């Protein structure tokens, strides 16, 4: 699947920015993910929820982007993720990312927790 990033406000809470990822985030596609995400964060959108429903695969370079976003938003907002596939979750878990970032099973879970 072709890699794609979509950035927009959450329908249920407009001050939250939802970043939707599609395809694979690897060394090749990570720079685009970083560019799109940092553009949103740079505009003051510090409450970020990454929707990984369309994400097939993530490499360490992709996880590096999460760390960059986290360091940018953690003082004023947050970075959280949802809809992780088992494989992607495992990548997060192995590195211990789940220790520094809130991970939600799905959107319902995320809405309940954030609201």
């Amino acid at each position, binding site marked *: 699947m072709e890699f794609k990033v979509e950035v927009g406000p959450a329908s249920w809470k407009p001050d939250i920015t939802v970043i939707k990822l599609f395809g694979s985030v690897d060394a090749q596609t990570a720079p685009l993910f970083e560019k799109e995400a940092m553009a949103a964060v740079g505009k003051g959108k510090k409450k970020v929820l990454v929707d990984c429903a369309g994400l097939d695969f993530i490499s360490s370079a992709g996880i590096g982007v999460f*760390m960059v976003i986290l360091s940018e938003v953690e003082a004023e907002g947050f970075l959280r993720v949802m809809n992780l596939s088992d494989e992607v979750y495992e990548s997060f878990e192995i590195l*211990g990312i789940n220790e520094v970032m809130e991970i939600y099973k799905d959107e319902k879970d995320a809405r309940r927790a954030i609201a």
Partner: protein
Amino acid sequence: MRLPLKAKFSGLVLGLVMVILVSIWTLSVYEQSKMERSIAEQQRSTMRDELTKRATNILAFLSANSEALAIGDYLTVDAFVRDLSTSPDIRFIHIVKDGRLIVPLQDGAPPRYQLPRGVKPAGGAMHFEMVDGAGVDSEPLIIVSGPIVDKTIRRRVAEAYVGISRLPVRDAIESAQARVKESGRIARYEFTFATLLFAILGVVGSVILVAFVLRPINILTRGAKIIGQGNLNHEVVVRTNDEIGDLAHTFNVMTRNLREDQVKLIEKQKLEQEIKIAMQIQQTLLPKSLPNAPGYSFGAVYGGAREVSGDYYDFLDIRSNGRPRIGVVVADVAGKGIPGAFMMAVTRSILRAQAPVSDSPAQVLKLTNGILQPDLKKGMFVSMVYGILDVQSGHMELSSAGHCPSLVYRAGSGSVETVRCKGIALGIGAAQLFERRIESKTVPLAPGDIFFQYTDGIQHAMNIEENRFGMDRLMACLREFNPGDAQSLVARILERINSFTAGFPQFDDITMVAIKRDRA
């Protein structure tokens, strides 16, 4: 020989003008001589008509008064003739009867008439004869001869010879010809002057035209020189809406493409240079040889996806209380190129410095993270497995900083175990969190057992159908390739991965380390 365009154009215009001039001169001279001839002819015939008329009149007058001749009254005739001779061009009127000149009257008897040279005796009709040199001072004459007939008696009573000068005719013709010649000459000079004026105008015009045409070409030439000297930012400004304008546009497009290509080339060269430097750094940091410990074989494979890897592995010789130990490190640095290579060098140095401090891998990783984490650039982290093999006991103590699990092939059962140690990658969390999460596990290696550690590039290796190599294939390899030493094992696994990916470009690095305890 180099001839500027201005000279060529001027020469061409001048040449054309000269050709026109010569043709018109030739034509005008030819036409003029034709005209002169026709004017002379016309004048001559007009004059002849005039003379004929006068001669006829004279003869008619004499005939009308022929009775005086018939009766021999020559005195009267002589008076008539003298009267007629007053005309300035009439040179003589001779009336001859029976071969004697009777008028003008002579003293004595009429003398015999001597015919003027070249004139025949008058016949029955009027006759004209051109005679040159017959008059005074060799004046050219026309001599008209004819009979004088008495109408009453219808008899020929005498012959008349009338000499008329041709000089006035000749003069009139010559002056007419001279006038034609003169006006032709004036016309030619005027024409020549006008043509030369046009030639000068043509040359000046062509010089101006060429300069006008050359201006954009000169701009182009100057532009080409500037670009040729290496300034690819130069733009040629030619705003003419013609072929030269098109050429300038093409020229600018070419320069722009050249500039873009050059930028790309420089970027590519920069990247290649960066990759080269990073590779050099990595090559100096990787172990030059495998450890040598009796009862064990060691194997390692290291391959970057795209020349520069974020992976590294290391073997450390640790002796503690006289017991030989071998430290093994497999790590994956999130970051490629020079930053990745630099990060790898820093991590390796810190770990090597901390390794002698403690026998516990978890402790060494804690110390390493403590030093590394505060200075790491955001988004950079290192996942790492650090194991310490007690050579004598065959016990391997493992800790993982967010790295993928270790695999152990058990020779006794022919199965593969997965060993997962909790922990987070170096650089991700503060010291407290890192230390809280990290754990150690001890794996005993029996004879024939294999400890295998890899980076996630192996699992993620992808073929053209976008299938990944995955854990199952890796574990199958371990079961299949376990005979032989550790190095041949990793070599065969790499071979298997390469035949799986079949040249499909990989974006993740592949690193693996194997330690096999010899069979007893």
